[in-house]
């Protein structure tokens, strides 16, 4: 699998895929996409990088253990349900804020943070599995 072409292209491909996955994640509320698909794209990006350049390189690149990313995602998702409690609404009632950044209106919402949590959980879990399997292949 480790042909020179694959190894040369893989880092760029992976970077583009991760970028694309974030794009898919953010557009999810209005266009096809969302945290789950985004997470799967990013996970496949890491899997490709791992097959091409070795697991150690991926682990260096993401610096955290993938399972910690997953756990952080679950934490963010749970946290996103809390603000409504302070507004005397049931857990996970969505809250919206419209920020004005340099003249552009940016809508922020708790479902967005929830979706980011979903993204992180999927990336983390699938990447852990894929990396662990690839690692055993090489030892």
């Amino acid at each position, binding site marked *: 699998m480790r042909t020179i072409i694959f190894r040369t292209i893989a880092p760029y491909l992976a970077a583009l895929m991760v970028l694309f996955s974030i794009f898919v994640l953010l557009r*999810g*509320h*209005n*266009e*096809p*996409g*969302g*945290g*789950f*698909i985004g997470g*799967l*794209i990013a*996970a*496949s990006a890491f*899997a490709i990088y791992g097959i091409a350049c070795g697991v150690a390189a991926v682990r260096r690149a993401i610096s955290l253990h993938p*399972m910690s990313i*997953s*756990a952080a*995602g*679950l934490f963010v*998702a*749970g946290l996103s*349900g809390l603000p409504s409690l302070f507004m005397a609404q049931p*857990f*996970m009632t*969505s809250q*919206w804020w419209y920020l004005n950044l340099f003249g552009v209106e940016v*809508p922020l*919402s708790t*479902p967005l943070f*929830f*979706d980011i*949590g*979903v993204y992180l*959980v*999927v990336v*983390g*879990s*699938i990447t*852990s*599995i*894929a990396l*662990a*399997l*690839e690692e*055993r*292949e090489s030892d």
Partner: protein
Amino acid sequence: MALTGSEATVFAVLAPFAAALVAPALTRLMGANAAWPLALVPAGIFLFFAGLVPDVAAGARYTPTLEWVPSYGVTLSFYIDGLSTLFALLISGIGTFIILYAGGYLKGHPHQGRFLSFLFMFMGAMLGLVLGNDLITLFIFWELTSITSFLLIGFDHLRAASRRAAIQALVVTGGGGLSLLAGFLVIMSVTGEASMSAVLASGDVLREHALYPLILLLVLGGAFTKSAQFPFHFWLPNAMEAPTPVSAFLHSATMVKAGVYLLMRMHPVLGDTVLWTTILPLFGGATLIVGTLLAVRQTDLKLMLAYTTVASLGLLVMLTGTSWEKAIEGAALYLLAHSLFKGALFMVAGTIDHEAGTRDVTRLGGLRKAMPITFAAACLAALSMSGLPPFVGFIAKEYLYAGIWGEGGVPLTLTAVAVIGNALMLVIAAAVAIKPFLGPKVDTPKHAHEGPLLLYAGPVVLSLTGLAAALLAHDTGVYFISPVVSSILGNQVAVDVHLVPGYIGAALILSVVTVVLGIVLFLKIDALRDAMARLLAAIGWGPDKGFDQAIAGIVAFSGWLTRRLQGGRMDVYMTMTFLVTAAALLVPLTLTGNWPDTLEMPGFRFYEWGVLAIALSGLFAVLVARTRLTAIVSLGIQGFAVALVFMLFGAPDLSFTQFMVETLSVVILALVMTRLNLQPRDHRPMLPRLFHGAIALAIGVGLAGLLIRITQMPFDRSLSDFFEQYSRTIAHGRNIVNVILVDFRGFDTFGEIAVVMLAGLCVLALIRVRPTKDRAAALDHAAGDEALQKSGEARL
């Protein structure tokens, strides 16, 4: 009225739990002396309920209520009447001295704080049980007493005997609790009421209902196990493994009376039927005789007392079971008398054990000089237990004899049972209280001397209370016995209690017979003991052994079943899973006659034919693939074709996800394959191949049939309409699928991503298992598949 908002009662029940929280810290700070301030808690509760006594005696009933789980109609409500007040007074009053006693008994024990904490938790649970009005609340406290009793019996958890006794008590009483829960649920559905006070007001509804026998049996299942009725009596003597304060509190005065309490409590609505007056006296009488006979055989002070507790509970059940007013008066008096003298005697036994180093009655003697105060308390309590004047035990015996004798018919048998039981009770009382103290001095393991104030305070006060209750018989009758009897009978009655019998009647004669018989038997106690030992040896088997056999049987059965179901062969698991899937698809379709009627082929466009061709070529490739790897990749073709179908029919999100899941499935499956020690080619013989093919076909046909059938049903648009209408306006999103996932059904998604993460963790753990065995490799494979399926489900 002098008492009590709801808060005061709730506070009284919760106070022991608060004390349970501070007990360990306070004990660390003050050592054994922490018992003094801690005992103020039950003392305060005692005073609170004592303040209610005059009102309750005048016929007042209170039902303080607090909402607990309003959405299910579960309330934290209490019912205060004569019966529950007497129990609350016994629990808190005896509890006060038990806390003091525990302070002295476990002085210097490294876990004394934990022990006191458990005791307080039990006290709170027990108060909640006797005061609980809501049936569910009552059940929860009922089980809580079983659990705290488990903790207390198993306190010395390094000893195997303690652990066994704790588990046995939990299994027996907890199992009975489940029976009680079932009984309560039936009662609730029959009466439509959720609270004890309302059920008690329902009159004959339960008695006349067709389900009455079932209700009675279920409630008795709870009461008989808790109150150690034969043949469930065996857990109580085993529970003597607990430290003595526990035995004195739980296993004589309070917890084991919970079953009797329940029977008395429900007597107005369940009692006085043929079934009731047959079952209860039968089991109660049998328990009385078995308990006293087994007690005679023992030489351990605590075990003797434990078996007489079993016997006394039998007596109470027997009296309650007659439903005769006079007998119930006797039961109420005996209930009070027994709690006082048995609590005191247990503490005496514990003090002897603590100070002399043994509680084997054959190795004790002549302690009267060394322990005068304990001896005095023991004598007072033993006289009450023997039913001699001027103690409350005597009054109780007079009334119960009068109660049984007064009716015609069966009573002769019951009277005989009661006389024999009481005579044997006198034998035990003498053996426990007289033998260790009188006679020549016997060398004991420890040099015996009087215990500290903490140890003798309880026995002295309790036994003196037994004397005072008898001397002030009239007040006892007005303030305690009349209200209790009123509660049990369900209508207001006044019981006139006298210490001195008004006339020489049957009761007094029976008492004399009992005492004479008791003294004769006591003189022959060694012969009696040998005879019992021989008899038991001849029988050989008992419920205690039966419990062990039942547990061993359950373990053996589950082992057998697990080995059958979990053989450890992957192909068997897979075959079973797919067979069940096929059955789940095909059987309902066939049974309900829901196979699709006609197959109409819609006109396909050319590119739709193309997708179909791709799917079919993928299928063909799987079938003819030479190696497993090729087959896996070919399976991906199939998945991509499905993704294309989703895209063509307007589900871009689904299609998108399907593409990604399919890709990752193939990658991960391929990675797993390289790790498995499988041959690259499939070498299954023809027969299994055909069999597996048949299963695959069955699932395919079933799923296709189901899907076609669903599309033929009329489509309910209400949900789609709702989401189309509100997705934009409420949730500010145009992508309905995503809005449902992260907003409308966000909580579901939350659960699903938690599952994804857990599945990931499990797979990781399985991969880390070193591949020393072939089994580890097989497990990897299964887990990888499963995780992918889960991730797919989370989205789809």
